[in-house]
């Protein structure tokens, strides 16, 4: 922001059109137009970095008193109590932090809920995406493949609130009415399978619905990236595989997918990033149960992002501002989880190295 202001100066001083310094009009370097572009470029490079640092610093400053008061039970309890006296709580001070008397916060269920729904999304979405990408590149006739590809990209462009609405109005009730009762009735009574048995509410709001909605949201990201990667696999190794007598499936498993492994990890990380931070769609289909984890995948749950969006208004009625600080602490946890996934992916990519990442070496 500050960096772009000086950029405007030279352009005005030169009195030229901003485009006059572009290559092709005979002038080079040092003069108005190019300076603007150079400054814009610098600003463009600094702003994202500055924004990240700014966000983290603001969150930290807000959250430090919350860290002190909430302690480690922030991660082990599942409770949202802005004040022990409810709405009539008074402000007290503990260790320099002003808060309402009897305030108690813990977001175990939100943090674990975020991780589990992301896991469901990856388990369901990634195989589907890779399958779709392989089919588009290697199986479908060219014109059909182009059509399917367009739809895949359109799916990526649907606003998440629309997917959430569809989840509540159509998909969730469908799960609740037609799928879940059937599955629950017919599964054998085996310990592990009991996670897949149980009642579900009428709108299907549950951990399962949240995970599946997230899967739908990451499919276009992972599938379109995987499709572009598979297109780049040279034909020779694949021909070699076929010459050795491999089936299409074996060729895909042993040649094509290992070839694009690195890029695929990048694509999956992009999908995970989307799933971790997705807010409104999950807020609509999760059932927002902050009090604990469900005993099966049909139970209601919540995620960090959904908790933040749903509790901000009540946090604002806390005159001590402490509840807002606590939400800032929770937001920081989400930022750390997302960054950790990115760093882990980088390390994984370094170890496996190979083809360039689809989103550049910056990941």
């Amino acid at each position, binding site marked *: 922001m500050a960096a772009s202001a000086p950029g405007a100066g030279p352009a005005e001083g030169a009195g030229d059109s901003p485009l006059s310094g572009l290559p092709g009009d005979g002038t080079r370097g040092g003069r108005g137009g190019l300076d603007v572009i150079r400054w814009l470029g610098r600003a463009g490079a600094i702003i994202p970095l500055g924004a990240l640092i700014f966000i983290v610093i603001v969150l930290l400053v807000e959250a430090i008193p919350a860290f002190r008061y909430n302690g480690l039970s922030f991660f082990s309890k599942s409770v949202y109590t802005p004040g*022990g006296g409810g*709405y*009539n*709580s*008074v402000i007290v001070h503990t260790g320099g932090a002003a808060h309402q008397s009897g305030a108690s916060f813990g977001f175990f269920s939100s943090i674990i809920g975020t991780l589990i729904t992301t896991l469901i999304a990856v388990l369901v979405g990634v195989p589907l995406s890779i399958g779709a990408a392989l089919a588009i590149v290697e199986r479908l006739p060219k014109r059909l493949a182009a059509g399917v590809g367009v739809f895949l990209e359109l799916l990526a462009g649907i606003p998440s609130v629309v997917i959430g609405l569809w989840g509540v109005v159509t998909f969730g009730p469908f799960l609740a009415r037609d799928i879940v009762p059937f599955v629950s009735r017919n599964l054998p009574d085996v310990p592990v399978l009991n996670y897949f048995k149980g009642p579900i509410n009428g709108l299907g709001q549950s951990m399962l619905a949240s995970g599946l909605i997230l899967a739908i949201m990451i499919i276009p990201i992972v599938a379109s990236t995987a499709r572009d990667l598979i297109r780049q696999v040279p034909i020779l190794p694949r021909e070699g595989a076929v010459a050795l007598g491999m089936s299409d499936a074996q060729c895909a498993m042993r040649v094509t997918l290992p070839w694009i492994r690195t890029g695929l990890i990048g694509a999956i990380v992009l999908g995970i990033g989307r799933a971790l931070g997705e807010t409104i769609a999950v807020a609509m289909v999760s*059932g927002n149960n902050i009090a604990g984890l*469900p005993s099966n995948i049909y139970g209601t749950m919540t995620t960090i992002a959904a908790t933040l969006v749903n*509790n901000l208004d009540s946090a604002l*009625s806390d005159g001590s501002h402490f509840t807002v600080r606590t939400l800032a602490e929770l937001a920081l946890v989400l930022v750390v989880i997302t960054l950790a996934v990115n760093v882990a992916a980088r390390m994984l990519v370094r170890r496996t190295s190979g083809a360039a990442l689809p989103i550049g070496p910056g990941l």
Partner: protein
Amino acid sequence: MVGSALPTKPSTTPKTILETGSTLLYPLMGAWTQAYQKQFASTSGTSKGQPYATIDTGATGSGTGLADAASGTVDIGASDAYLSSSAKTSTPTLVNIALAISAQQINYNLPGIKNLKLDATVLAGMYNGKITTWNDPAIKALNPGVNLPSMKVVPLHREDSSGDTFLFTSFLNAQAASDWPSSLVNTTITWPKGSTTAETGNGGMVSGCQATKGCVAYIGISYLQKTQAAGLGTAMLKNAAGKFVAPTSATIAAAANAQTAKTPPNETLSLINGPGATSYPIINFEYAIVNTKQSDGIKAEDIRAFLHWTVHTGQDPTTYLDPVDFQPLPASVIKLSDAQIAKIGA
């Protein structure tokens, strides 16, 4: 400077008043501001038809309205609840001014069963997981002769922070404090194990309850027609006198009138579980939260004029209140509101 006489119209210097807050009050606030701006518009010159005071309204939630009024980013915060104790401590110049009376209905989805009788003890039992089926002895005891099914009780709560949650949990705490402690009274709470399903907004509560047989839900009175269209039952609630009453304009007005005498000058009063044999137990004041120390004297005058208008002209039932099923303020409460409005100055 504190204005002693209340202005009845805005200053002729064009000003913009910002209002945000309660989604429940928002439709009424919108109707009020439209009528007000039309009534007090310039009648001559180039600005003919332009309102003297423009009022921007926003439905952001009561907590946001309160915080924005406290920080001075808006001029009027609309809230379903009076100021929290901690908000009053941190910004002592804030006042809550009663503007209208709202109520809350308890709805359920039990095919064929209308006018079920419920009380706070039974509702608290449902929400904290002690009562899990509709043929529980505690529900049967309140409804002799009604053939209750063994259907599972599914209590719904609001996932977004809400004045409705505050009213409902206040009611449970007021009538059944041993089952519902005061720590569970707020606009968002950690719901006990009995209620694991949440819906967004009153509209979400209606559709969620419609989709779930055996549900029970608390819904703003302004959704009365929608809950009836959805085929939901409306519970008759036990009031402080031990009588069961349905939410009607008569029972809501009875509850309001029974409590006007004890309304304090700062209008901070829970109307929950009020006295009177015909009083409906879950009613509340809708409030404007305003900072009495404004930075701009002309704006302060405009705020006084507008709020004064809302508690007089704006109380007309057929034009403003009936469309949202709100009730007008009793005359003695209007006097208290006027006294508080007069404190707004610069």
